[in-house]
């Protein structure tokens, strides 16, 4: 059976509507170019032509989790963009250290690499005991991986390279227990972390934070949706709290540009001022 390697925009919209109506997940304001690639990828992986993909999404309740795993991009790294972590160390941590409690929200955290990187960062800065890190994602399956905190040794090797480039003082593997071909994050680093499902599109403010990181999530959303989520972030930040977006994601909304001061324009770190 040959799978067509293309779907039209109207077919994509049809699928978006179906997923919204049956499963309650709304992909309407996702970037179409990326979303289309994800759908084509699922069709290839599962060997489903378009009509059959619609069919299983409608009739097989268990398939939706698989669909969600593939449609959302779960590619992440520890210490992704080392320059970002260097900027946190020099420009943000001295400020965060002045807060009594440091609550951090890692939004769209996938399998947990970013929250654990932050946990390591806070520990090495001596701020771990007063920090609490929340990792949220739309995908419960990813969060259960995050809770385990077990990563393949192959990945750890590349994360260690990032860690070194981030100018961190220790050795990344010191924060892990190595077992055969996997590495398990140390229990100490799991303390004061909490992972839970949160849908940026439909859920609201759930706490007040000193720092929010949401990196390489906005790239999948159109500007209208980005602004909507910026509002959630803005309302979730304490005064002078920090918002960190991906290094290729800038705030374009005039309204929020006035209320979020640029701390680092290269790494897109902002501070709530208004």
């Amino acid at each position: 059976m040959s799978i067509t390697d293309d779907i039209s925009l109207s077919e994509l919209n049809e699928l978006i509507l179906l997923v919204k109506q049956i499963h309650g997940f709304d992909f309407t304001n996702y970037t179409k170019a990326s979303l289309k690639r994800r759908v084509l990828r699922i069709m290839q992986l599962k060997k489903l032509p378009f009509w059959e993909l619609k069919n299983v999404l409608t009739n097989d309740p268990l398939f939706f989790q698989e669909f969600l795993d593939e449609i959302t991009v779960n590619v992440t790294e520890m210490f992704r963009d080392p320059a970002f972590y260097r900027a946190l160390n020099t420009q943000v941590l001295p400020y965060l250290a002045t807060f009594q409690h440091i609550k951090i929200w890692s939004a769209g955290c996938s399998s947990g690499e970013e929250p654990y990187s932050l946990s390591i960062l806070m520990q090495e800065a001596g701020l771990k005991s007063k920090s609490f890190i929340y990792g949220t994602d739309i995908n419960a399956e990813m969060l259960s991986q995050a809770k385990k905190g077990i990563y393949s040794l192959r990945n750890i090797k590349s994360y260690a390279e990032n860690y070194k480039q981030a100018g961190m003082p220790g050795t990344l593997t010191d924060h892990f227990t190595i077992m055969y071909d996997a590495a398990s994050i140390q229990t100490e680093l799991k303390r004061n972390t909490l992972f839970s499902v949160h849908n940026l599109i439909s859920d609201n403010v759930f706490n007040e934070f000193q720092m929010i990181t949401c990196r390489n999530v906005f790239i999948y959303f159109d500007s209208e949706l980005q602004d909507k989520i910026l509002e959630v972030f803005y309302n979730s930040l304490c005064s002078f709290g920090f918002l960190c977006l991906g290094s290729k994601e800038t705030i374009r909304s005039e309204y929020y540009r006035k209320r979020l001061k640029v701390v680092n324009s290269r790494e897109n770190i902002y501070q709530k001022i208004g």
Partner: protein
Amino acid sequence: MGNINASEIVKHLQSAEVLLLGGSAGSFMPIFNIIRSLPQNHPQPIVVVIHRGKNNFSDIENLFGDNCRILVREISDKDKIAGGHVYIAPANYHTLFEKGKTFALDVSEHVWYSKPSIDVTFESAADAYGDKCAAILFSGANQDGAKGLLTLRNKGALTIIQDPKDAEMHVMPQAAVDINAGEFILPSEQILKFMRETFAITNSQ
């Protein structure tokens, strides 16, 4: 190279709404020579995808930017695509085109061990621009870009491959030649000549 219709190539290059240049090892110089010959206000946006390591940013922009009249910038998510710019695909992201002439970045899986992948950008351009686009695939050591170039060709875009014999690394252009992805197969000298002609005509209008 006997039956190449030069005026046809130049005409198609001129009418393209966007020009795509892709390559890997050995592609820097031929691409650099094209960018360097661009006038400051060239109306056609140019998008460059060169394979690069994940944590090495800004060197291509700087190398190009310091030596060119045209504005060279690294792509940020949702940047508007406008003339007078050379856009460089950032490391550790795929670059796609969104309707309404904006870029959309993506951090999904590597393609042919590459991020940015040339295939991803070419295929997305085929969707967004169809035949109103021109693409050139240069030297490189893997087969990324070949399939994307074929997709473009099938949509009626102008597709050119650097002659594998002329390329520092032949694997990438050869992969494209093997699947018949290029309308024209030319040495880099000749590609540059056509580009210069195109730029001259476009900017004298």
